[in-house]
Each structure stands twice: as C-alpha cells, then as structure tokens.
C-alpha cells in the first residue's frame, strides 16, 4: 500500500510540472516558430530579421549597428549557403554583460558577435573567442589598415574582423568662433589660448567638455601624447605590463587639469541627457569626436537651428609631427561557443565586405569604414555631409586621421581599468587631487588588481 501511494504522489508532481511548462511554452513560444522549421540550423533562434532561405545554415549574430537590418537583408539575399540570424542584444556594455554571462554559463552566446576592439583582449583571455587565423582571416588582412589590424590581433592570433573605426577629429561651431572673433585652434597650445579668449570675449559656454567618465575618450587623448599604458600579448596571457602613469598621460592630464582650474572647460559626465543637449545647444564650442561623432550629433534633439558645424583635425601637441588617435570602433568576432565556426568566420569576413553593404553603413548608419576598398574609394573621400554644410569631412579630417593611426594595446581587464580611471579623474576634478597623484593612484590600483587576478605584472 505504502509504495503505491508514494508512487502516485511522485507521478502527480512531475505531471504538474509538465503542465506548467506546457503553459509557459504556449504563452511565449509563438515568436520562434516562424523560422525554426529548418533542419539545417538545428537550434531554435529568434531573429529580428526574416530568413527566407530556410534550408541554409544559420549563423546567429549580435550587433547594434544603426541601419544594420538592411545590411543583414543584403547579405542574406546574396548568400545561398549561409544565412544571418541577427539580434540586437544591447549596446556596448549591455551586450558584453549578456555575452559574459553566456560564457560563464557555457551556452547562450551567438556565433558572431560585435565587439569594440578595446574589449577583445578581455574576452580572448576567457577563451571566449576563436582565433580567426585558422579560418582565413589572413586573406583579408590586406583589406584593412595596419593600425586597424593591430587592434584586432595579438601576435599571430586574430580575434576579430575590423568593421568601423573612430579616428578622431574636432567638430566645432564655426558660428561661435566667428561671433567672438577667435581662431580655430590646430594645436593644444592654441586650444588653451582659444578657450581663454572665448571666455574673455563673453562666451558663456565652454570650449569643450572633459568628462571624467570619458573612458576610451580620455585614454585616446593620453595616447596622443605617447601614453601606452598596456603591454600585453595573448600568446603570453598571464603577463601584463602596466604604465598608466607614464609621461604622456601625465602631460595630457596636467594640461586638462589646468584648463579645468581656469574654468574654461566643462567637467560634466558624458553620455547623459544633459550632456547630449549641451553638445548641440551651443554650450560647447567644440566637440572632440571620433568619426562616428557626426552621426551621433545629428541624432540629438534640442539643437541650435542656426548652428554651423565644421570638422577640423584634432589639435596636436607638436604640429610638425602629428599623432593620430582612435576612439571606439568595432569588429566582428566569432565566439568559441559556435558549433559552426567556419560559417561564422565567413559571415564575419563578408557581411561588411561589399560596397553595397558599406553604402548602407555610411549613408544610413554614419559609420566610418575600415574596409580599404571603400575607405580609399573616391566615393567616400568626396562624400559631402549636409550636417557640415556640404563639407567633405573625410577628405579634410578623418581619412588622414585613420591612415595615421598606428594601433593601441588594450588591457585584459579594460572595463575595470576604465572604471578606476573614472574614479581617479573624478577625484581630481572634485577634490583637487593633482593630475600626477591621480594617475599614480590609478597605476597602483591597476597593478594590485592585476596581481590579484594572477597576472605577472611588470611596471
């Protein structure tokens, strides 16, 4: 008797569980049924785009490019053996958080993922990315500039295919400079003079903003004066060199600290609603920007209707030997969770590997291409931007900046480094810590952290 009752009890419980699971499927499972009938793809995936060639192999892609839907459709139309199933899993850190969780969980990552070049080492060290050199990445190496290729590779390994870049320039308000009779600066000395001159002439805003949470932006400014805080090679993944307080960084930070103390630059946080409005409402006379900046600016609300925007090269420390730097830009990497790395590598290499795709990316997404055939085309060089009154900003500014960029080595714990950088910069602005001390603190924190994480740290 006893056993029978027990058994019945046990049966009842799984039955209930099954029922509730069925209920859950019924409510949420409708979305995925459209594209999941194929046998080739194997797993169920819900794509943002509609896949018509259901027999082909499906490669899942996470990306947040603007106007990417058109690029995906173009790829799928022109390929019969492989189809892209695209999802926007969030922008920047939002996507990285999901990816990071998927790595830890051991499943859930897509085949191909959009990553900014600065986080590649952070994911490579967790064995989350496939070395693409075994899937023919070398064949496309010549399609990219040396600087762009250095950002995605480490030693012989290649962890991503470059897509768009962020060579830096200075976007400025011609009308403001004209109104107060100040010349547009070309060097940092002139920039400081202009900042003061604007203020003296009665300009109520600032020449620009130096955000303490600028992260990659601050680091790019440091790099322009020769700061190279990281030495790292994925071939020796447990060794890292840290010099966050090198001469270049100190020189640049002291410069900005001076401008802040003189009250001629703003210090508000970047990427907030207030900041976005200030960028376009005449609070700032210049916007030190990457090549994707114009697209960002033209999408902002509350802009001055009579603003006259122009682009100029980033001010230089030494006008006779200009140094070009990069801020942002992204790549396509193949994840090690992918069961079809070869097809995934094909997608990574080819999705932004045509002129048609790039015309969508440039005209609808305001991206700056790293793919040479379009980068070096007359079309791109001569492109006129209505936002800049028809100025050919690529020819005038960004092509030179991209060509001169020599690459940068990022940290295997870049996110931590950025957060700490924000902390020390805020301390400098808010509590008056000197620039040198702020960077020394940063260095100390990073070295401690590196050792804690088991790295052999050299300073």
């Amino acid at each position, binding site marked *: 008797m006893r056993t029978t009752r027990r058994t019945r009890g046990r049966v*009842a*419980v799984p039955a*209930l569980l099954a029922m509730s699971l069925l209920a859950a499927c019924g409510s949420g499972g409708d979305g995925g049924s459209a594209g999941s009938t194929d046998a080739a793809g194997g797993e169920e995936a819900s794509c943002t785009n509609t896949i018509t060639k259901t027999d082909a192999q499906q490669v899942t892609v996470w990306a947040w490019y603007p106007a990417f839907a058109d690029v995906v459709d173009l790829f799928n139309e022109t390929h019969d053996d492989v189809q892209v199933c695209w999802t926007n899993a969030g922008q920047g850190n939002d996507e990285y958080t999901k990816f990071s969780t998927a790595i830890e969980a051991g499943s859930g990552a897509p085949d191909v993922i959009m990553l900014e070049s600065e986080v590649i080492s952070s994911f490579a060290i967790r064995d989350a990315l496939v070395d693409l050199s075994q899937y023919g990445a070398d064949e496309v190496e010549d399609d990219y500039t040396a600087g762009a290729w250095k950002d995605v590779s480490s030693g012989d390994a290649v962890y991503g295919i470059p897509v768009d870049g962020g060579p830096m320039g200075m976007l400025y308000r011609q009308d403001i400079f004209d109104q107060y009779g100040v010349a547009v600066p070309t060097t940092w000395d002139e920039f400081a003079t202009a900042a003061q001159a604007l203020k003296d002439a009665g300009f109520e805003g600032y020449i620009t903003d130096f955000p303490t949470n600028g992260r990659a932006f601050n680091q790019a400014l440091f790099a322009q004066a020769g700061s190279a805080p990281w030495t790292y090679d994925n071939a020796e*993944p447990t060794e890292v060199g840290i010099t966050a307080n090198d001469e270049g960084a100190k020189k640049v930070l002291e410069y900005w600290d001076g401008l802040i103390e003189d009250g001629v630059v703003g210090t508000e946080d970047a990427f907030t609603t207030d900041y976005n409005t200030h960028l376009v409402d005449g609070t700032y006379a210049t916007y030190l920007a990457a090549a994707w900046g114009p697209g960002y600016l033209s999408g902002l609300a509350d802009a001055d209707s009579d603003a006259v925007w122009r682009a100029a090269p980033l001010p230089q420390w030494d006008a006779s030997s200009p140094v070009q730097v990069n801020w942002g830009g992204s790549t396509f990497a193949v994840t090690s969770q992918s069961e079809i790395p070869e097809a995934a590598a094909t997608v990574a290499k080819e999705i932004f590997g045509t002129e048609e795709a790039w015309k969508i990316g440039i005209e609808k997404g305001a991206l700056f291409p790293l793919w040479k055939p379009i980068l070096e085309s007359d079309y791109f060089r001569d492109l006129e931007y209505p936002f800049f009154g028809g100025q050919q900003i690529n020819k005038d500014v960004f092509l030179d900046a991209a060509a001169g960029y020599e690459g940068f080595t990022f940290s295997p714990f870049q996110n931590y480094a950025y957060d700490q950088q924000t902390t020390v910069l805020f301390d400098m602005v808010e509590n008056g810590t000197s620039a040198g001390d702020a960077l020394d603190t940063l260095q100390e924190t990073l070295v401690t952290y590196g050792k804690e994480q088991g790295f052999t740290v050299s300073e």
Partner: protein
Amino acid sequence: MTTTTAAPVRPAPVRATRRRRTEIDSRRQRWGWLFVGPFAIVFATFLIAPLGYAFWMSLRLKTLATGERFVGLENYVKAFSDEIFLRGLLRVAGFAAVMVPVQILVALVAALVLDTLTTRLSKFSRLMIFVPYAVPAVIGALMWGFLYSPRFGPAADLFGLVGLDAPNFLAPGTVFGSLVNIVTWQWAGYYMIVIYAALRSVDPSIYEAARIDGATGRQIALRIKVPMISSSMVMVVVFSLIGTLQFFTEPQVLRSIAQGAIPVDYTPNMYAYSLAFSYSQFNYASTIAFALGVVVFIGSYLFLYLTRKQSGLK
C-alpha cells in the same frame, strides 16, 4: 513545509481506530504534498538550487589569469577584510540609519491622519500616497534622474524664483539625500497602507473608552494606536531594513547620470553586480552576495530579537 498537514497521532485505546487514523493521516499527507508541490518545485528550482549553486561557487576561485580551484572559505576571509565591501556596508548602514526612520515616520503620520479622517478626500489622498509604489522602481529612479537634472529639472526655476542657484543634486555630498528622497517617495506609501490596514483592524470602541477617560487625539494616537499596531510596525521596519541593506536599483539607475558621485561599488549589491558582470569574477561576486546575505540575516535577526516584545514573537 509539511508540518501543517501532519496532525499529531494521539494514542488510541482501540487498535482499529488507530489504523483508521493513520490511513486518514496518510491520505491527508498525500493531498498535502499535492498542494505544496507546485510551490515546492518553484521554490526549489528558483531559490534553493541557485542559492546552493551560488554558495558552491563562492567556495571556489577563478581569476582572469589562473584556472578555477577550490579555496574553501578563503573568499569569505577576503570579503570581510575587503575595504570596498566594508565601505559599502558602512554606506548602506548609513542609509539604513537615515532612510528607515524617515520612511516609517512619513508612513506612520500619513496612516494616523488618514485613519482619523473619513471624508472622500482621505480616500483620494490614500490612493495618491500609494501611487508611487505602483511605479516600477527603475522608472521611478529614471524619472527622479530627470527631476534632479540641472537642465531638465524644475530645481533651477524654483530656486530662481527666490534668486538662488539650484544645488547640484548629484554631487558627491548631495547624492545621499537625493537617494533617500527617491526611496522614501517610492516606499512610504506602501508602508502607509500596511500600517493603515493594521489601524483599521483595531476595535474603535477602545478609542471611545479612551475618549470618555479624557484622552486627547494625540494621546489616542501615540498611547493607544501605535502600541496596538506594534507588530505591524516591526514588520514594516524589517522590510525596510532588508530593502535598504540590499540597496541596488536606485543608485544603479542614477549612476548612469552621476558616474563620479556613485562609483560602481557604491553599495555591496552593486559591488557584487559589477564584479560578476563587468569584471567577470563570478566566484568572488557570489562570495560578496553571500556575505551580504549573512549581514542582512544577522541584522534582521538582531532587530527581531530586540523587538520580540512588540512584535508578539515572544
């Protein structure tokens, strides 16, 4: 879980009765299991299992440059000597010291006032005070972010009326108060409803008796009403205490507009979150989360122990 269904078996003089009893008992047991089942499954799958897994993770260590290994309680030793974690704990303790009394006081006063009023206005006020709780926490924090914004917020205009400059609500010195304000706005209404419900269940004839004895309105409120609902008050304080120690949503949302004033490790929960999802230290993040759990447990246990008289637990 099953204690409620298991009736104590009393010794019966006759054998037959006992057998019938046990049969009824086990039939009840079976139904009991069936009723408890759905909850038990969900409870085990979504709470017990993840907790167990997190605890197991917290006993291991994996850093970026080394493999995963078992370290026992080493992580906990590190956590309780980790300056960042301790600073976070101190900060939420500060929040608890300010935020809990403020919330409870606002809620109590509102409930007492509403309890004495019987006009239509009181029903309306009750609803309005409760409304902020119906706003999702993230939305509420985002909204306050806009209100605090120097450009979009009303502060500049309001202070401008009297010829003053508006303070920056998101500076390191003021962000504490700004956060207290958001949480109080959000939760005071909820606590008010709990307290109000408790007040409604008090027999009104007691008030009448007090009034005949010459008690004033204030005396009735403080000497009769508050003591009579003390068990509800204790519960509300425990809710608020636990919520404050686990402070996360509001600072995390406000951080997007004040990254300098609210660092990633502002509260222990934020620290655990960034360790896990920004710095991929899942093991140490589990340790921090568990260590915080221990502190919350001790804190609320201590509070319940100290108030055992008021709450009726004794």
